[in-house]
């Protein structure tokens, strides 16, 4: 018997959310004033949640790792946001978005959550428009749509290539409006270092003031973690420099189960790695695949300085060849894996010796539509590419390669988005809930905002209205211990005791971090196998030991200290990376972003094992140095038929 209760309401999937809303306990407006909610993270999910809860009357304290909520990494999302408005009249519906998302997630997500997401998607657009988000418009003044990321209908709303920015600024505006009214206390430059659990309930956090270094306790009646994903465990990813897993990981160590950590999305269209000093990869929106054609030479070519000279019959448009109906628009996991397949066969293009890239070629469309049309559609993306690579994509094909982009796994939550710790809610990319083993394009923004604007304002009341909460002051033993643990960890990483100072070989945080990233990418990356995962499970603890024995973290704990911040986050990545490898090893099937070499069809497609692995893997922390315990939440599919995912 599983300890996990997902609390999915009964009845047909179409009515679950409506029925649940009727059953939900509503906290009276007078009482909302008496509750204080801590929101950690101020990206799309966190800012929308903090603003919406404050509007309802809750007292909210919002913690922001940046100097301003406007800098959260949601801002970098380019492509768009899905919604079932069906404005183009091309047959979209709640059902179709629901089905596409469940299928796109390779049947590893919860039907009820996904259906709710599809249902609420249309409210998000109305909300954003009311906030003044400048979505693209048609000449008639109506909202424009495009097709995106492997969808057969045009359901994606966008604001040039900066949809995430505009949606985040909308949520940020709503949040700042509540800061102005005094209902939200904004705590910028604060990093959550620990979750405080009192009597089994999440009652506060310990955080570090990133300017003064003060270790602060904050108390509340509920804690909402919306701290994003953990893609930076790979070091090189499209995620921002400050993105990290520590808030979620610290909650995990306090009892929140971590679900499906092996599900990582590798985005197919990124600018390839260039040089050892590289710190960050840049995504090229996948909307480029609407007009760009992906190819490699059909035989290894040594000189590709002028790719256009390669005759057509010597090119392999492998996505079009292998997937005639979706062609270049296959979902991300499929496109990424195929790209890797080509470079593994030594057909890659780009600088020696790695040749880790494939072409994304616009020549045919430029000939067909004219340069100005392509410029209007993708001008800013072409500029970014040109800026980074110093190559002009109008005249030579782009070189692209997959890069880590998003993590589908995260803290386990029930239908109310509450974790296994009562009072700890998890929103947005930080939870595991809606995308299964692979996320479709333009649905991250949708999920983050859906959780923040339209789910948590209801479900939080369902918790606060039902539980007994005794007053806490921040001076209880649990808070004291937490502060002291955090201080100890900081002292240790700064080598207060001086034990590391004696060691001969010392390494910077970045050196060790790169090493971890490379291990993760090579063995827990795009394609995994038993041997590699077992190697990673040995290697990562060694690296962790090496980290604690040799790392250099200079500077003071009581000033602004970026190296200290990064060091603490990287230390958590070592623990998380190990769990990812263990999860990937345990999942003896291929599903979505999790591809095991041993489990593939004859054509090299992911081969699921629905009989044995149709479950959510939720891992329970057992203490330092002990392996986590696996708990399984069985996935029940009542509405969609499990099929081999095919985009042929």
């Amino acid at each position, binding site marked *: 018997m599983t300890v996990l209760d997902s609390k999915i309401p009964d009845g047909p999937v179409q009515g679950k959310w409506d029925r649940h809303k009727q059953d939900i306990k509503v906290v009276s407006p007078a009482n909302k004033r008496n509750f204080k909610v801590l929101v950690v993270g101020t990206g799309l999910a966190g800012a*929308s949640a903090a603003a*919406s809860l404050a*509007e309802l009357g809750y007292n909210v304290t919002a913690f922001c790792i*940046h*100097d*301003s909520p*406007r*800098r*959260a*990494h949601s*801002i*970098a999302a380019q492509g768009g946001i899905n919604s079932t*408005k069906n*404005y183009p009249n091309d047959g979209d519906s709640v059902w179709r978005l629901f089905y596409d998302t469940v299928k796109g997630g390779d049947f590893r997500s919860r039907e009820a959550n996904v259906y709710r997401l599809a249902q609420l998607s249309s409210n998000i*657009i*109305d*909300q954003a*428009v*009311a*906030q*003044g988000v*400048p979505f*693209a*418009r048609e000449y*008639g*003044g*109506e*909202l424009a749509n495009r097709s995106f990321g492997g969808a057969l209908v045009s359901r994606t709303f966008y*604001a040039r290539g*900066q949809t995430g*920015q*505009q949606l985040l600024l909308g949520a*940020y*505006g*709503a949040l*700042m409006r509540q*800061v*102005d009214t005094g209902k939200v206390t*904004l705590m*910028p430059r604060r990093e959550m270092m620990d979750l405080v659990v009192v009597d089994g309930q999440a009652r506060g956090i310990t955080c570090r003031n990133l*300017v003064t270094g003060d270790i602060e306790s904050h108390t509340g009646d509920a804690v909402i973690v919306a701290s994003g994903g953990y893609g930076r465990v790979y070091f090189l990813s499209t995620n*921002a*420099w*400050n993105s990290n897993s520590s808030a979620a990981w610290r909650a995990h160590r306090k009892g929140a189960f971590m679900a499906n950590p092996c599900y990582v999305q590798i985005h197919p269209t990124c600018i390839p790695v260039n*040089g050892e*000093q*590289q*710190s*960050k990869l*840049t995504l090229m929106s996948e909307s480029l695949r609407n007009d760009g054609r992906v190819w490699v030479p059909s035989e290894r070519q040594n000189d590709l300085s002028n790719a256009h000279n390669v005759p057509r019959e010597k090119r392999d448009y492998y996505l079009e060849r292998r997937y005639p109906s979706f062609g270049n628009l296959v979902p991300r996991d499929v496109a990424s894996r195929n790209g890797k397949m080509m470079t593994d066969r030594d057909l890659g293009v780009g600088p020696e010796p790695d040749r880790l890239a494939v072409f994304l070629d616009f020549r045919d469309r430029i000939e067909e539509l004219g340069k100005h049309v392509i410029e209007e559609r993708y001008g800013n993306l072409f500029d*970014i590419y040109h*800026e980074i690579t*110093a190559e002009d994509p109008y005249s030579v094909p782009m070189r692209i390669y997959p890069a880590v982009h998003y993590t589908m796994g995260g803290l386990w939550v029930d239908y109310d988005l509450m974790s296994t710790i009562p009072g700890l809610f998890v929103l947005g990319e930080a939870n595991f809930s809606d995308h299964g083993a692979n996320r479709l394009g333009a649905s991250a923004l949708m999920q983050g905002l859906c959780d923040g604007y339209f789910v948590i304002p209801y479900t939080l009341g369902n918790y606060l209205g039902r539980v007994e909460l005794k007053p806490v002051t921040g001076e209880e033993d649990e808070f004291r211990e937490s502060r002291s643990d955090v201080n100890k960890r900081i002292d240790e990483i700064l080598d207060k005791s001086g034990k590391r100072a004696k060691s001969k070989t010392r390494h*910077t945080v970045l050196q060790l971090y790169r090493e971890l990233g490379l291990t993760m990418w090579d063995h827990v990356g795009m394609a995994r196998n038993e041997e590699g995962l077992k190697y990673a499970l040995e290697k990562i603890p060694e690296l962790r030991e090496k980290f604690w024995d040799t790392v*250099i973290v*200079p500077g003071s704990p009581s*000033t*602004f*200290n970026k*190296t200290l911040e990064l060091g603490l986050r990287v230390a958590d990545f070592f623990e998380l990376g190990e769990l990812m490898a263990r999860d990937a090893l345990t999942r003896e099937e291929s599903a979505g972003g999790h591809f095991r070499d041993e489990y593939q069809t004859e054509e090299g497609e992911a081969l699921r094992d629905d009989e044995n692995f149709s479950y959510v893997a939720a891992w329970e922390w057992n203490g330092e140095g002990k392996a986590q315990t696996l708990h399984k939440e069985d996935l029940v599919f009542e509405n969609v038929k499990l099929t081999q995912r095919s985009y042929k």
Partner: protein
Amino acid sequence: MNLTLKVWRQDGPDAAGALESHTLENVNKNSSFLEMMDLLNEKIMLDGKDAIEFESDCREGICGTCCLVINGQPHGKSLGVATCQVYMRDFKDGDTITIEPWRAKPFPVIKDLVVDRSAFDRIQAAGGYISVSTGPHPDGNAIKIPKDVSDVAFDHAACIGCGACVAACPNASASLFTSAKISQLALLPQGKSERSRRVKRMVEQMDDEGFGNCSNIGECSAACPKKIPLTSIARMKREYLRAVVSPFDAS
């Protein structure tokens, strides 16, 4: 390539600061400027010294975190880029590069090259939004917005809040930042009902923060990574003038 770097070091808002010289070898010309800074810090830390504090986040020009004045120019010499989009191929072997923080009274230095830009958040809180709460709203298509209006609104909405406008302005004026938000919301039909209140409060907050006056020099627009035009400021002045003479808004 090999470089000499003169980097501003300052312990805190009230401490005196100074330029500190470093040399750095073997910088890859395809590295970004910030990767060069990472490399410099690696070297400094391996030498047993404290790293230079600077900020960055997305490293793709959209979050607005990075903020370096490179050779006397915010975000370096190129137009329309943030610091993270500056590449080392813009420099020559043997160059000396001076790196300083944004300089403005309302942006006190936190440490080295890191400044406190919370004044921008307070300006935003004073009215940089449309006052709607979460909940049911009219269908997105119920409000028709001509494409050109929407496009111009977007041009202003593109602001990333980096503060280069302030750093570049000889008067450290925040007019371009403030006017970008005011312009976006004044252009859209949704934003019109509270336009007077918005411009009044945001300008008041901008003044209270201690930013300088706009002298129409336009260096802000040249430094802006999103190329927000100076006409944005003209629109703010119109909006304010309108709020002065408008008899309708009681606020």
